[in-house]
C-alpha cells in the first residue's frame, strides 16, 4: 500500500439518546493510503456514516468520540480545536453528502457558495474566488457554467446539485474526500456519470477517497479495497474480488447473496435456512391460464397532462394477464409513477381508457373510485414504508382498515382472524400487531404495507418502488415475499422501479419508459440481455454489476 494518509485506531462513538447512551461505532480500525479509494459498505445503522462524520468532526451535538484515535497525517483529529480544526475542514479533508439538494443552501446562488468555501481557506479577492468557482464548475462538467453561477439549488437537477457539491468539496484541493452515499437517490445513469466524475477528479488530483455506501456493487466498481461494517464493527476487509468469491464473515456472505446481480434469481437472495418455505412454492409449476382468457388489465392509449403542460405520460398501452408480473422502469421524470397511479385510479388520466376484468374503469373519477367494486381488486404498495403508514394506527389497525372499509367487516373475531391470517402470509410475527409504526423496523413496516394491500385479496397489486428505502438484506426478503404471494394467490404485480436488477428477477415482462412514452418492452431476460434501443442499453450498462469469476478476473 502507498503512504498512509489516514489511520483510524479503535474508534468508538456513542450517541446520548433519551434511552441512554447508544454505541454507534464500536472499535473501528481502518487506514487509507494517499490517493486510494476505499469502500466502506454496510446497511443502515452499521455506523459507516458515523465513522465518516467522526473523521471530519461533523458529529452532531449528541454524538461523542468515546475512545480511539483518528490520525490524519500523524495528527489526532479528535483533539483539534478552533482554528486548527477549521484549517483541516475543507482544506485538508472534505465531505460529500447524500441528498445533494438539501446539502446546498437553498437561498444562496451556487457560485457564491463555492466562493465561500474558497475564501475561507485562501486569501484572495472576491473576484478571484469567483473566477476559481467558475473553473470548478467547468471541472465538474456543468454545462453553461457562467449562467449556472447565479442559479439556485432548486433550479438544478439532483445530479447537477451533486456536481456543485463536489465542486465545493474539492475547492481547496483536500487530501481526503469522504463521500457519504453520494449517489443514493439519483438515477442509475446519473449515478454512473457522477461516480465516474468523482473517480476521475480524485485520480487526477491525487485525492484519497472513502466511499461510504450501502451498495456493494457500486463499491466494487470503484474501489480496490472494501471494508464491510456491521453494527459498529468492521467485519471484513478485502478486495472486491475476494469479497465476492470467498466472503469470510457470515454477514458478508448474506450481504453478497442479497445484492441482486445480473444473473441472480430471487431464490438465491437469502441464505439456506430462510429459503425453505419459499422453495416449496417455487417448485410447484405455475398453471398456465387457459387459452383465450381475457386479460386482467388492458390499458389503451393512456395520457396525462398536468396544468396544460407537456404530457407527463402519452400514448401508453399495455395488457396484463392474471398472475403476471410486469416491471415498469425508467429514470425519474419518465412518468412511471404517474402511470402506476392512474392505473391504481389515484389520479385521473387526461386521455385513454383502463379496462379491468372487462370493465372500463378509466372514466370513474379517482375520488369516487373507492366506491367502485374494483377498489379492492386493485391495491397499492407505496415507496416509503415509514411515510405511508398512519403513525396513530397500530399494525393491526393498518391491516384491518381496508377490510372494514372495502369488505364491510366489523370489529370482532372474524376481523381479527383475517388480519392475523394476512400477517402470517407476509411473515409478520403476530405479537407485533399491537405496535405502532415507529416501534417497527423498516422491513417490518414494509410487511405491514404489503399485508394491508393484500388484505382484501386483490387481483392486481401495484408496487411503486416498494424496496427503494430498504436495506438489501431486507429487500431480498421482501422480494421473495412478493414473488411467493404472486405464485400462491395468483396476484398480478405491476412493479415500478428504477432498480433494473430487481425488475429483471421479479418480472416476466418489462416496459421501459422515457419522457412519458414507451421505449421498449418485452420479456425481461431477453430485454436486458439484448436491449434493442440505445436508451435501454444505457440503462443496463449503468447498473453497477457485481462481476463474479472470470469477468472480475479479467477486469483486474
Amino acid at each position, binding site marked *: 500500500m502507498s503512504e498512509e494518509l489516514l489511520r483510524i485506531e479503535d474508534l468508538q462513538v456513542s450517541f446520548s439518546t433519551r434511552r441512554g447512551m447508544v454505541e454507534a461505532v464500536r472499535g473501528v480500525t481502518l487506514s487509507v493510503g494517499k490517493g486510494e479509494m476505499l469502500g466502506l459498505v454496510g446497511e443502515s445503522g452499521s455506523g459507516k456514516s458515523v465513522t465518516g462524520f467522526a473523521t*471530519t468532526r*461533523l458529529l*452532531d451535538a449528541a454524538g461523542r468520540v468515546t475512545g480511539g484515535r483518528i490520525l490524519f497525517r500523524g495528527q489526532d483529529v479528535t483533539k483539534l480545536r478552533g482554528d486548527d*480544526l*477549521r*484549517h*483541516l*475542514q*475543507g*482544506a485538508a479533508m*472534505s*465531505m460529500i*453528502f447524500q*441528498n445533494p439538494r*438539501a*446539502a*446546498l*443552501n*437553498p*437561498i*444562496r446562488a451556487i457560485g457564491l457558495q463555492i466562493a*465561500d*468555501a474558497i475564501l*475561507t*481557506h485562501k486569501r484572495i479577492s472576491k473576484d478571484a474566488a469567483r473566477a476559481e468557482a467558475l473553473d470548478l464548475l467547468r471541472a465538474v462538467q456543468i454545462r453553461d457554467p457562467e449562467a449556472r453561477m447565479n442559479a*439556485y439549488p*432548486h*433550479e438544478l437537477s439532483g445530479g447537477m446539485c451533486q456536481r456543485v*457539491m463536489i465542486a*465545493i*468539496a474539492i*475547492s*481547496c484541493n483536500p487530501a481526503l474526500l469522504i463521500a457519504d452515499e453520494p449517489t443514493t437517490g439519483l438515477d442509475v445513469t446519473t449515478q454512473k456519470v457522477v461516480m465516474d466524475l468523482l473517480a476521475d477528479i480524485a485520480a487526477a488530483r491525487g485525492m484519497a477517497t472513502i466511499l461510504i455506501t450501502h451498495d456493494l456493487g457500486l463499491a466494487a466498481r470503484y474501489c480496490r479495497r472494501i471494508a464491510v461494517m456491521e453494527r459498529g464493527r468492521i467485519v471484513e476487509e478485502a478486495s472486491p474480488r475476494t469479497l465476492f468469491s470467498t466472503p469470510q464473515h457470515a454477514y458478508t456472505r448474506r450481504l453478497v447473496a442479497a445484492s441482486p446481480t445480473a444473473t441472480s434469481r430471487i431464490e438465491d437472495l437469502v441464505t439456506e435456512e430462510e429459503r425453505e418455505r419459499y422453495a416449496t412454492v417455487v417448485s410447484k409449476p405455475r398453471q398456465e391460464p387457459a387459452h383465450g382468457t381475457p386479460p386482467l388489465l388492458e390499458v389503451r392509449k393512456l395520457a396525462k397532462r398536468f396544468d396544460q403542460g407537456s404530457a407527463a405520460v402519452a400514448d401508453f398501452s399495455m395488457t396484463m394477464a392474471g398472475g403476471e408480473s410486469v416491471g415498469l422502469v425508467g429514470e425519474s421524470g419518465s412518468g412511471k409513477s404517474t402511470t402506476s397511479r392512474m392505473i391504481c385510479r389515484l389520479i385521473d388520466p387526461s386521455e385513454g381508457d383502463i379496462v379491468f376484468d372487462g370493465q372500463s374503469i378509466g372514466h370513474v373519477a379517482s375520488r369516487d373510485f373507492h366506491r367502485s367494486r374494483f377498489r379492492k381488486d386493485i391495491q397499492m404498495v407505496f415507496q416509503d414504508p415509514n411515510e405511508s403508514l398512519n403513525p396513530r394506527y397500530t399494525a393491526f389497525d393498518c391491516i384491518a382498515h381496508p377490510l372494514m372499509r372495502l369488505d364491510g367487516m366489523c370489529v370482532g373475531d372474524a376481523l381479527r382472524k383475517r388480519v392475523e391470517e394476512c400477517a402470517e402470509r407476509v411473515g409478520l410475527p403476530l405479537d407485533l400487531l399491537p405496535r405502532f409504526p415507529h416501534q417497527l423496523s423498516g422491513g417490518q413496516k414494509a410487511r405491514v404495507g404489503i399485508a394491508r394491500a393484500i388484505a382484501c385479496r386483490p387481483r392486481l397489486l401495484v408496487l411503486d418502488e416498494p424496496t427503494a428505502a430498504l436495506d438489501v438484506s431486507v429487500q431480498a426478503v421482501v422480494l421473495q415475499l412478493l414473488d411467493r404471494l404472486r405464485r400462491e394467490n395468483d396476484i398480478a404485480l405491476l412493479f415500478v422501479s428504477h432498480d433494473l436488477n430487481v425488475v429483471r428477477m421479479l418480472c416476466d415482462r418489462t416496459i421501459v419508459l422515457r419522457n412519458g412514452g414507451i421505449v421498449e418492452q418485452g420479456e425481461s431476460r431477453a430485454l436486458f440481455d439484448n436491449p434493442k434501443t440505445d436508451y435501454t442499453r444505457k440503462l443496463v450498462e449503468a447498473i453497477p454489476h457485481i462481476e463474479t469469476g472470470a469477468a472480475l478476473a479479467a477486469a483486474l
Partner: protein
Amino acid sequence: MTTGLGATMVRAGRRLLSSLPALFGVLVFTFLLMRVLPGDPAVFFASGPNAGKEEIELIRKQMGLDKSVPEQLVFYLSDIGHGNLGRSMMTGQPVLKDLRERLPASLELTFTALLIALIAAVPLGVIAALRPGSVVDHGVRLFCALGVCVPTFVSGLLLIYVFYYLLGLAPDPTGRIDVFTSLPPQRTGFLSIDFLLAGDFEGWWAACKQLILPAVSMALFVIAPLARITRASMLVSLGSDFVRTARSVGLSWRKVVVTYALRNAILPVITIAGIVFSTMLGANVLVEKVFSWPGVASYALDALLSSDYAPVQGFVLLMASLFVLVNLVVDICYGIADPRVSIE
C-alpha cells in the same frame, strides 16, 4: 433578477385582486353586525335623557335609520364607492378626516413597537437556538412567558409607575407630544420623522420620549411569538444539511450562523412579523387608552361604546385594508428573500 421581480409584482397584483371579495365581505358583515348590536344611536345622540319622541324620530330620519336595513346597506355601499365613509356623531367630523388624523399616530406607535420587538426578539431567539436547553434558553423562555402573561395595560402602567412616577425619566403619559411643544409642519404624519424633516431636534427628542414607553409596553407583548418562531426556525436551520455542508468546508462560525443559518431562518419570521403587525394595529387600544394616545383604535372603541356606526365601520374597513396591504408587503419581502417562491 428582473424576471424574479416581475414575477413577484404579478403575484402581488393577483393577491391584491383576490382580496377584494374579502374586503367586500368585511364591509357587509360589519354593517350588519352594527345593526344587530343593541343600542339605538338616535336615543344616544338626542339632546338629553328627556328628549321627546319627536326629536328622536327626527334624528333617526336624519341618520337614515328609518329605512329598511337592505336600503341602508345600498346607501352605505354607494357612499363608500364615492369615498365617503360617513360622518361621526361624536366628533361631528367626516370619518375619513378623523381616521386620516389618527392613523399616523397608530402607525407610528405600531411600527416603533414592532421594530423594538424585532430588535429584541431575533437575537434572543438566535441565542436560545444556539444553546438549546441551556440557562440562556430557559431565561429567554421565562422572559417571553412573562411578556405574554402580563397584559399590555398592566405592563404599560408598571412602566409609567417606574419611569414616570419613581424615576421621573419619562414625560407625562398624555399623548404624542406635550402641550407646550409646537408641532412641526405635517408631512408624513409621523411626528418623529416630521420633526427631523423640520430640523427641530428638541421637538424630535420630545416626541421620541413620548413614544418610547407605549411602544415598549406593546413590544413586550409580541416579543414572545417572534422570539419563539426565530428560535424554532433557527434550530431547524442549524440542524439542516446545508449548515452541515457549510461546517464541513470550515466556514467561520459567524458565516455559518449568520449567512447560512439565520438568513434561512428569518423567512418564517417575516410571515409572523406581518401577522403580529396587523394584530397590534387593532389590539393596541389598551395601550392607546393608558397613554392617552390619539390613535384609531381608541377612537373606534369610543365610537363603539356610543353606538356611533360610521366610525366603527370605517375603522374595520381600514383595518381590513391594512391587513391586506401588510400581507402584500410580507409577500413581496418573502419573494425577494427566497428565490424559490417566484417559480411556484
